[in-house]
């Protein structure tokens, strides 16, 4: 079980625990922004942006010890305040029954990485009472917000799954969960920084994918769905491969498999993977 389930799960998964969507937990935004004041550092844009600049500088200097220390400190802070975790489509749909209100909003990461126009960028879901603050800090919610019913949000999330976007949740003042992203590599700053710099701001999901080669037809549709560099084709058998050590358990490969060859297994029950988050 991941450390957050142990601490905040009450025996289950922490993100399926309704307590972690409660209003009394919502406070980090105020602390963060009001202390910072009006000046903002454009180079710190995006989740963990300031840290990643320092990590890149250390890596370019060849200072592995400094890079490791930066990550250790940043991850400790992130896990106490603001970090992300990969979740499956089914879990996302369950969360949409727990959280209220739900609002579609523009994705800060994709704005940072692509400069994506607001009208094309409504891929984030803001959830919980934090969304009522959107008018106070409109830059965070650039382009406004669109409040949705749970049914509308589910329909939207299923569409983003078809589009091939990874579902992740975001803590804002752990264990308060305030965001459900649907994003991609490299559009998602968290996915990118994890894959390119091993910065564990983004935690793996509770699952990992397996391919049943009896069923796999070798159609290759799943390969392009993986954002985590965990999939390829086995040249000899012409079947899909999943690297379990690289898999984040998002389930996007599975949802496109017409042969039902891909299943998700519980990371916690695998002796090799249970401590790899």
């Amino acid at each position, binding site marked *: 079980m991941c450390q957050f389930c142990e601490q905040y799960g009450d025996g289950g998964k922490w993100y399926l625990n309704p307590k972690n969507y409660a209003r009394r937990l919502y406070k980090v935004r105020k602390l963060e922004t009001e202390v910072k004041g*009006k000046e903002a550092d454009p180079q710190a844009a995006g989740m963990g942006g300031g840290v990643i600049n320092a990590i890149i500088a250390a890596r370019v200097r060849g200072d592995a010890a400094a890079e490791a220390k930066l990550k250790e400190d940043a991850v400790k802070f992130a896990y106490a305040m603001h970090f992300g975790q990969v979740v499956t489509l089914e879990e996302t749909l369950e969360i949409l029954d727990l959280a209220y209100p739900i609002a579609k909003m523009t994705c800060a990461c994709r704005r940072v990485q692509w400069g994506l126009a607001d009208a094309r960028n409504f891929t984030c879901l803001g959830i919980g009472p934090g969304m009522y603050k959107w008018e106070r800090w409109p830059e965070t919610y650039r382009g406004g917000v669109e409040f949705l019913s749970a049914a509308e949000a589910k329909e939207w999330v299923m569409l983003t799954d078809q589009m091939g976007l990874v579902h992740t949740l975001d803590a804002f003042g752990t264990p308060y969960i305030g965001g459900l992203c649907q994003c991609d590599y490299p559009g998602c700053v968290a996915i990118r920084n994890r894959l390119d710099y091993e910065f564990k701001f983004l935690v793996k999901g509770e699952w990992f994918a397996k391919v049943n080669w009896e069923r796999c037809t070798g159609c290759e549709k799943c390969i392009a769905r993986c954002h985590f560099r965990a999939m390829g084709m086995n040249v000899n058998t012409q079947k899909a491969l999943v690297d379990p050590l690289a898999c984040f358990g998002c389930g996007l490969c599975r949802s496109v498999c017409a042969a039902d060859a891909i299943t998700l297994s519980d990371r916690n029950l695998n002796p090799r993977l249970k401590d790899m988050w």
Partner: protein
Amino acid sequence: MAVPKITVDYGKCTDPLSCTFCMNHCPYSVFIVGETRVYKFRETPLEEFRVYGRYYDRCDGCNVCVQGCPKQAISVTF
């Protein structure tokens, strides 16, 4: 590590969020854009965004950004 120095002339690049050429043409997505000020009760105006080459360690000096920048604001030097 042989990495380039990527500089953006902010006298020339004044509205990166409306342009986005470098962000959408760099094969390695080296560029990011961020706001220089945050306001209560209103969005940051477009002229207060700045683009810069955060992920310069991924740059191989292909110069797609330098050649394509409509404001000729970017330089990449090794």
